[in-house]
Structure formats: structure tokens, C-alpha cells
């Protein structure tokens, strides 16, 4: 409880506790953990072919190398572990198990065929090249466009047509409504394939704790509890005997919210050889095998009236799952993510979609920051611009005519999903002022279309799904994603407070923000609160950290635990102070009288009684200890929203794009720490700018990944990122405890469409139609030339 008049820690830009050790270089990431002296190192032998049969593997040369201890192939590995099998409980899903090492068939370049175990990491690398694998090459299915064609080779025999997931939806009388529309506007959008590319590659270290006869498993992950449950299941271990620990995690972005086959192999080999085993990925492996993302086609078709109001919207969505359905989110997350989210902040009453996920001989795709939404809003917001162009109405005005208005909230969208609060129109209007939108349009019109520099402005007005509870995951069929999170608050005998949360940060500043939340809700000084997370031996079970869920789910759990423990503190304090319970409030780590007299007892004094370390006994009926565990299951989802507006200049001679102005107005409900919120938005927006302008995973027609290094996989540097004008609106959630909404993904969701629309706006002036990303100079020049040839 927050005492009346108390100036809280929530809402303040509290500087981070994490910084002091990270700035000294003392952050301990996976590869910084000092491994035991007898540790063995793994090297994975990767398939150089996209699709082939394995005729044989000869490891004799590798085994003869000094320092090599063992080589495992599918034959040995299959005796140690089950394959990873992602079960999605949703009609139209056809997942297939993935063996830990490829068994008879390889399905993408980089798939593991064998694993070398050596005394040091250099020897393991040498030995990889000495494992001779005899392949029988097969034709591969590589692209999205190719996958469902009749002639396409099947990636899995048991997946007909390479369609791993298919889902359809239509509102009642959709077709009649669509046909009754006065005009139809349609476009096909092609979103390129990208990857999350955290600067710390993945890795893990398995150590057998012989005293406890258990497995201690350090891994660079966002989902320690889900890894523990999955590892125990696949390896046939008692779950209590598996302890998963996340050290500092050097960026995740969803890339590390997946459970990976290397984790299983590392643990399995440690158990088999009874030695510590370590594996650290190099960058090439990271780009070849860590989940990829996007690679979508979204075709939208809107029936509109003459004012630009959308009467009915149809979406045809195809996403590229890659070779296997990933765990725990499966191949349907991106697909349904795009289909279910793209209606966004708009008041659309008739909607139909067909969404499919196709399997190809490429790296499996997974849940990278934004999941489905950057593509979904690239399409939806691109369509808004096209409606404007078709009708001669400014695209901002088209949005204002379709957006859900404040008086309509709470609003249930066309999919039956509730938006409790939001600021869809207000964000847009404020962003337009900050961007001097009208002024830009006037200058743009005055400049004409004949110069060497074409200028354009692009808007993305979007919702960001966040903090999904169990209902949100069940509705999408994900059975291995619980949805709740939890917190244990314990006041120690010293009076200091330990907070254990079920999250696992990768740079989000949880040690700081959860202390802000707890200190306010339990009436403690922030400096008395100590936050810990990421170790399954001490942290309570939960869904961990991805999908912008920590503030909502973890924050709610902290509030509940604070309230439960706060009641006990007040009961004991009331007894000690000999007053009624309602005469006691908690403030500054003390239980004090509400009468303003400042008479009270400190948490320490209460703790001494609770821990039986004082002459005063506990009140009758009270139990020893000062600890509370609470679990919070958020609503189906909470909905943040924001508007990004980008203004760009495109050099029509070179195709180079310069971002000249960038405005963000966002609303993530009640803000815990505005400094950290801004940081999340900055970082996400930079990733979105990268995704829009330069980032792309490129496979050749044979399924070779052509840019598995950071020279060729371009990511933005400081020189590619503009200064932002950033403004906040706070519409606290009324459905989620604490009023928090998530903010982890909005940056990338807003940036991809805003930048794409800005470039498309600039080039529309010379008749070019820009509908794909990345917006590389070569692509833009080609479209400019094609437009010139048409005119």
C-alpha cells in the first residue's frame, strides 16, 4: 500500500543499480564464468547443405586428434535425449519433432549433424573440420513464394504442401459487407528476413553438482524456468535435480527466448561423460542457427467508402517458419501475431484473414522483438497511405477517420480483444504537431518532384500487445507458455528486503525497476530492497522475460506479494504498538501510526519479532517469518500504443535514404521508470530502422546463407540513427494490476512501417510503389527506374 501523500519511486527516472558493475566490466556473462578445470568444450558440425540425406559420418580422424574426447552423432545422441517437439494446440497446426542432431536428413544449412567434445575450444574447432559427412544432395525449398507450389520439394514428408500451420477467420457476413464497399484498395507487402543478433552470442555451461547429484546449467537465455522444464523432460531427469541459472545476458530480443538444441546437447553430454561441458557460439553459428524472424508476405484488401473509412478488411498472410517449429512458441506465433494484431488502433468491424506458415529449408524462425507486428503494421499503415493516395485525402486524415476514439474506450476489437485504455488519436495528433506535419506537407508540395532529393513523411500508428496472461497464450494454442509470473518478497531478520521475481533480464534494468515497484507498494525505502532473478533454485516459477511482459506480469506479482506481506507487517506492528490494524501504515521501511505522530516500529523491529529474535512474542495465530509468494496472471493482453513519424530524404541518384526527423509519441500506461522506458524505445527504434533500411538475411536459391557475418549482415551504427523527439502519454491500464503496459517492442514495431512509409511517400511522387523491405539503394533505384519507364 502507498501511504497517502507519499512521494513514490514509481514514475521517477531512477538511475540503474546494474550500471556500477557493468561499467567496471564486472558483469558476468556466460563465457565470463570461470569453468571448472576439467571442463570439456563442444564444437558442432553443421550441415553445409540446405537439404540432403546423410549417408554416413566418419569421425575417426577427428577422434584421433590430440585433445578430442568424443564425437556424438544422432545415433548416440538419440539414446540420451528425446527430440524437441513443439506442440501447439490449435487447429491447422502440423508441427514436427526436431532431433538434437540431424538424423538421416538435414533440412537447413547450419543444422547440427554431429558434435565434437574436446579438452579445449581450439581443439574442438579443429576437430569439426575433420568429421567427414557423406551427403546425398537433394533439391531444397528455400523461399516463401516457392514453398506451397506443387513442385516444391517437401521439407518434411509428413507436412503436405509444406504448410505447417493454417488458420482462417471471418466475421459474420464478411463477404456481403466487403462486396458492398464503394472502393477497394489492395497491396501486397513483402517483409524481408532479419535476425535479432544480440552482441553476446548464445552459450551454455553444464556442471554436475556431485554433492547434490544434480545438474547446474548456466545458459544465456531469457527463459530459465521454461528451459529447466524442457531439459528435465527431454533428458528424463527429475525436474528438482535441474537448476538453470542465467548469468548477465548480453542482449536477447527474443532470440534467447527460445529453447535450443545446443542446450540439450550440452546437458546430455555432461551427464553422459560425467564432466563439465561448455559451449559458446561463434558469430557465424549465431547467424546460421539462432532463430531468424519475419520473412512474410501480407496482402491486404480494404473495402472503403468515399470518405476513406474502412468497411471491411481482408488479409492473406504467409510466413516462413524455416525448417522446424521452434520451442516453445512454434511456427504459428509470427503468423497469428501478424493476423491478430494488424487491425491495431482502428475501428474495423469486418475482418477476414487466412494466415499460413510454410516450412522451408532455412533456419527456423522465432520470436524476435515485435513478432508479426512490424510486418502487420507495415501492411496496415502502408494501406492507410494507399487509401489516402487513392482518394486524394492526406494519409494522416485517413488514420484519424478510422482510429478508435477516446470515447469508444474500453473497446472490443473485431477479434473480440479488449482495449481497456489507450490514446490512439491523441498520440497521432501530438506526433503530428511535434513533426510539424502540416509544415512538412506544405514544404514537400512547394519543392516539386524534379529535384535530386525527394522528401517523404511516414506515419505508423499502432498498438503493441504486451504482458499477455495465460488466456493470451491459450487463445493462440501455446501449451508450454504458462502466462503468469510470480514474486517472493521476504523481509530478512535485518529488516532488509529480498525480492525474487520469476523474470530474467537481458538489459532491461529489472534490479532497479522492480525495487521501485516494491518499495512503493510495501512502504520501504528503495535502498532496503534487493532484487534477484534468473536462478531457478531461488526464483519462483514463471513465464520469464519476453513479449514485453516483465513490467505487467512481474510488476503485478510484486504488487500482490507486497500487499500480502504488508498486511502481515501491519498486523504485527499493530500488536506491538497496541493499536487497531487500521491505525497503522507503512512508510520508509517503518510501520507508523496514521495519526501523523510518527510513532511506529521499524521493519527491523517487526522482523526481529517475526523471526523470534526478540523478547516479544508473535501475536497469537501469527506464523514465524516474513515472506510472501504471489502469482499474477495478467489479462489476455495489455495494449500499449504509440505513433512514430519519420521524415526522410531519398537521393534519387544513389538511392540513399537519410532520416531527417523522427518523432515518437508513445503510451505504455503507467511508467515505472521513464529513463528506462525511453531507453527501450530508443533501442527498439534503432533495430526497426535497421530492419527497414539495411538488415536482411539472404539465402541463395540453393539455400546457402550468403551473409553469415557482420560485414555482410548490416546493422545500424551510431551514424545511421537520428535524434528522436520523444513524448509520453500515460493511459494507465485498468485491467492490469498497477496500470503498467509493456514497452519492449514498440520501437521496432513503429519504426519499420514509419520509415517504409516515409520512403514510399517520397518515391510515390515519381510514381514508384515501395512495398518491400529492406529499402536498400539498389531496390529503390530499380523502382525509380521502373516508374520512369512506365511514365
Amino acid at each position, binding site marked *: 500500500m502507498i501511504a497517502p501523500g507519499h512521494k513514490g519511486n514509481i514514475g521517477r*527516472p531512477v*538511475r*540503474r543499480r*546494474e*550500471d*556500477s558493475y*557493468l*561499467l*567496471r*566490466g*564486472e*558483469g*558476468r*556473462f556466460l*563465457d*565470463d564464468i570461470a569453468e571448472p578445470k576439467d571442463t570439456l568444450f563442444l564444437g558442432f558440425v553443421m550441415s553445409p547443405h540446405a537439404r540432403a540425406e546423410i549417408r554416413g559420418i566418419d569421425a575417426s580422424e577427428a577422434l*584421433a*586428434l*590430440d*585433445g578430442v574426447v568424443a564425437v556424438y552423432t544422432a545415433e548416440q545422441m538419440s539414446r540420451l535425449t528425446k527430440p524437441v517437439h513443439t506442440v501447439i494446440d490449435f487447429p491447422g497446426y502440423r508441427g514436427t519433432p526436431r532431433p538434437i542432431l540431424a538424423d538421416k536428413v538435414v533440412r537447413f544449412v547450419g543444422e547440427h549433424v554431429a558434435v565434437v567434445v574436446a579438452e579445449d*575450444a*581450439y*581443439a574442438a574447432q*579443429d576437430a569439426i573440420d575433420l568429421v567427414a559427412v557423406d551427403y546425398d544432395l537433394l533439391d531444397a525449398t528455400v523461399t516463401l513464394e516457392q514453398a506451397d507450389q506443387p513442385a516444391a520439394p517437401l521439407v518434411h514428408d509428413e507436412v503436405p504442401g509444406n504448410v505447417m500451420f493454417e488458420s482462417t477467420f471471418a466475421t459474420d457476413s464478411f463477404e456481403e459487407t466487403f462486396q458492398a464497399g464503394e472502393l477497394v484498395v489492395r497491396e501486397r507487402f513483402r517483409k524481408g528476413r532479419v535476425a535479432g*543478433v*544480440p*552482441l*553476446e*552470442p548464445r552459450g551454455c555451461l553444464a556442471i554436475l553438482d556431485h554433492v547434490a547429484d544434480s545438474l547446474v546449467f548456466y545458459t544465456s537465455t531469457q527463459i530459465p524456468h521454461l528451459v529447466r522444464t524442457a531439459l528435465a523432460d527431454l533428458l528424463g531427469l527429475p525436474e528438482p535435480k535441474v537448476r538453470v541459472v542465467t548469468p*548477465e545476458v*548480453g*542482449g536477447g530480443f527474443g532470440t534467447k527466448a527460445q529453447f535450443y538444441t545446443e542446450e540439450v546437447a550440452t546437458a546430455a553430454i555432461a551427464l553422459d561423460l560425467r564432466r563439465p561441458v561448455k559451449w559458446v557460439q561463434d*558469430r557465424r553459428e549465431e547467424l546460421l542457427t539462432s532463430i531468424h524472424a519475419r520473412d512474410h508476405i501480407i496482402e491486404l484488401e480494404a473495402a472503403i467508402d468515399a470518405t476513406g473509412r474502412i468497411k471491411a478488411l481482408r488479409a492473406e498472410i504467409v510466413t516462413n517458419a524455416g525448417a522446424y517449429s521452434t520451442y516453445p512458441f512454434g511456427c504459428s506465433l509470427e503468423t497469428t501475431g501478424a493476423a491478430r494484431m494488424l487491425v491495431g488502433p482502428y475501428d474495423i468491424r469486418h475482418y477476414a484473414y487466412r494466415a499460413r506458415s510454410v516450412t522451408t529449408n532455412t533456419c527456423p524462425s522465432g520470436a524476435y522483438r515485435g513478432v508479426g507486428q512490424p510486418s502487420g503494421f507495415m501492411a496496415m499503415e502502408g494501406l492507410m497511405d494507399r487509401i489516402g493516395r487513392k482518394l486524394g485525402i492526406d494519409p494522416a486524415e485517413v488514420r484519424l477517420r478510422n482510429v478508435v476514439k477516446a470515447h469508444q474506450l474500453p473497446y472490443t476489437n473485431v477479434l473480440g480483444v479488449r482495449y481497456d485504455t489507450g490514446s490512439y488519436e491523441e498520440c497521432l495528433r501530438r506526433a503530428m504537431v*511535434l513533426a510539424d506535419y502540416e509544415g512538412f506537407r506544405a514544404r514537400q508540395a512547394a519543392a516539386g518532384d524534379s529535384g535530386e532529393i525527394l522528401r517523404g513523411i511516414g506515419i505508423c500508428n499502432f498498438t503493441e500487445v504486451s504482458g499477455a496472461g495465460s488466456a493470451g497464450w491459450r487463445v493462440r494454442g501455446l501449451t508450454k507458455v504458462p502466462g503468469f509470473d510470480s514474486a517472493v518478497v521476504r523481509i530478512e531478520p535485518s529488516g532488509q528486503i529480498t525480492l525474487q521475481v520469476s523474470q530474467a533480464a*537481458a*538489459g*532491461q534494468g529489472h534490479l532497479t525497476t522492480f525495487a521501485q515497484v516494491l518499495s512503493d507498494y510495501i512502504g520501504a525505502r528503495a535502498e532496503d530492497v534487493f532484487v534477484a532473478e534468473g536462478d531457478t533454485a531461488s526464483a519462483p516459477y514463471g513465464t520469464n522475460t519476453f513479449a514485453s511482459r516483465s513490467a505487467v506480469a512481474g510488476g503485478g506479482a510484486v504488487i500482490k506479494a507486497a500487499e500480502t506481506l504488508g498486511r502481515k507487517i501491519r498486523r504485527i506492528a499493530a500488536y506491538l504498538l497496541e493499536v487497531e490494524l487500521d491505525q497503522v501504515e507503512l512508510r520508509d521501511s517503518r510501520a507508523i501510526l496514521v495519526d501523523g505522530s510518527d510513532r511506529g516500529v521499524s521493519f527491523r523491529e517487526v522482523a526481529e519479532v517475526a523471526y523470534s529474535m526478540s523478547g516479544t512474542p508473535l501475536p497469537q495465530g501469527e506464523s514465524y517469518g516474513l515472506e510472501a509468494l504471489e502469482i499474477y496472471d495478467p489479462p489476455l493482453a495489455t495494449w500499449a500504443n504509440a505513433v512514430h513519424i519519420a521524415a526522410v530524404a531519398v537521393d534519387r541518384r544513389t538511392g540513399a535514404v537519410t532520416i531527417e526527423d523522427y518523432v515518437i509519441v508513445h503510451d505504455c500506461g503507467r511508467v515505472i521508470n*521513464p*529513463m528506462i522506458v*525511453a*531507453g527501450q524505445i*530508443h*533501442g*527498439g527504434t*534503432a533495430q526497426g530502422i535497421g530492419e527497414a533500411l539495411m538488415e536482411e538475411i539472404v539465402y541463395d536459391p540453393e539455400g546457402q546463407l550468403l551473409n553469415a*557475418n*557482420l*560485414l555482410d549482415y548490416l*546493422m545500424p*551504427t*551510431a*551514424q545511421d*540513427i537520428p*535524434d*528522436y*523527439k*520523444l*513524448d*509520453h502519454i500515460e493511459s494507465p491500464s485498468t485491467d492490469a494490476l498497477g496500470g503498467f503496459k509493456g514497452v519492449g517492442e514498440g*520501437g521496432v514495431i513503429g519504426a519499420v512501417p514509419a520509415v517504409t512509409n516515409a520512403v514510399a511517400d517520397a518515391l510515390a511522387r515519381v510514381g514508384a510503389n515501395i512495398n518491400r523491405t529492406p529499402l536498400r539503394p539498389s531496390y529503390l533505384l530499380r523502382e525509380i527506374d521502373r516508374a520512369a519507364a512506365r511514365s
Partner: protein
Amino acid sequence: MSEQQGRQRVDVTLSINGKSYTRHVEPRRLLADFIRHDVGMKATHIGCEHGVCGVCTVRIDGRTARSCLHFAVALQGHEIETVEGLSADGRLERLQQAFHEEHALQCGFCTPAVLLTAEEFLAENPSPSDSDIRAALSNNLCRCTGYTNIVKAIARASGREGEAASSGTGDAS
């Protein structure tokens, strides 16, 4: 490479942060691995092992360099410096404080390398513009912060408010 050559080891003596370390390692041992795994200083991280991301940045004879692109054996007689050394002698303090104030780090994996780049840059450019800072920073990838707050922090450490800091309304800093 034959097996015999693969396992050959030599004594390598390196001066790191003013102290001398001798280790028996393979001639192909990378400087980054020598510092991290043979000496045990873990502030220098490894991000790509092909010289692009800048996460493994150290100083060699006072100049920033990629420790993943150098063999340890070739650097005998040279002075190596890492963030541990610069932190200990207080040279980094102003930058570290500015990074803290401006929230210029998130996961912190690239941070030691960014600090080394920034320290060298400020020594040579005491009054940089934001665009100077952005140019210098383009040597180092950061995937979390989007660079905005790093630019502000370096500007702050140079004794002025970053231009980025003044733009926008309500942006906490």
C-alpha cells in the same frame, strides 16, 4: 595443419595494464582469448571474432584495437590496456558516471569496449559535436541502446549537454 603443429605451445609474455603475464599457449592463441581465458580478465568481451562489432576492443600501445584480430604471441613487448586497468587508475571515471547518468548502457555487453573508444576519442577531441561522436562510435556496435544515450553520455563527459539531450519534450534524462 598437422596434429603436432596444432598442439604446439610457446611461452608468451604480455604486459596487460602494466603487469606482466606469462602463459604457455598455442602460437595461434588470440589476444582476446589470452586476456580472457589465460589471464582471467573478463571485461573484454567477444562478439564476432572477425573484427566488426568492436566488443573486444582493447588498447595496444595506447591505441584502440580489436583483440580478436591479433595473435597474443605477436604482441610481446607491447602495452595492452583493458577496461579493468583504466577503471583502476580513475581515467574512466567521468565517462562511467556520464554513462550512468544518461542511461547509456542496457545489457552492458558492449559497454567496456564503448568506454575505451570514447576515452580515446575524448582525449583527442575534447569538445566534439554530436556528429563527431557518432562518427567515432561507428566503430562499435550496440544493439540495445540505439546509441542515443551513448552520444549524450559522451557529450556530457566532454563537459557539455548533448544536442540530442535537448531535443524532444518529456524525454527523461
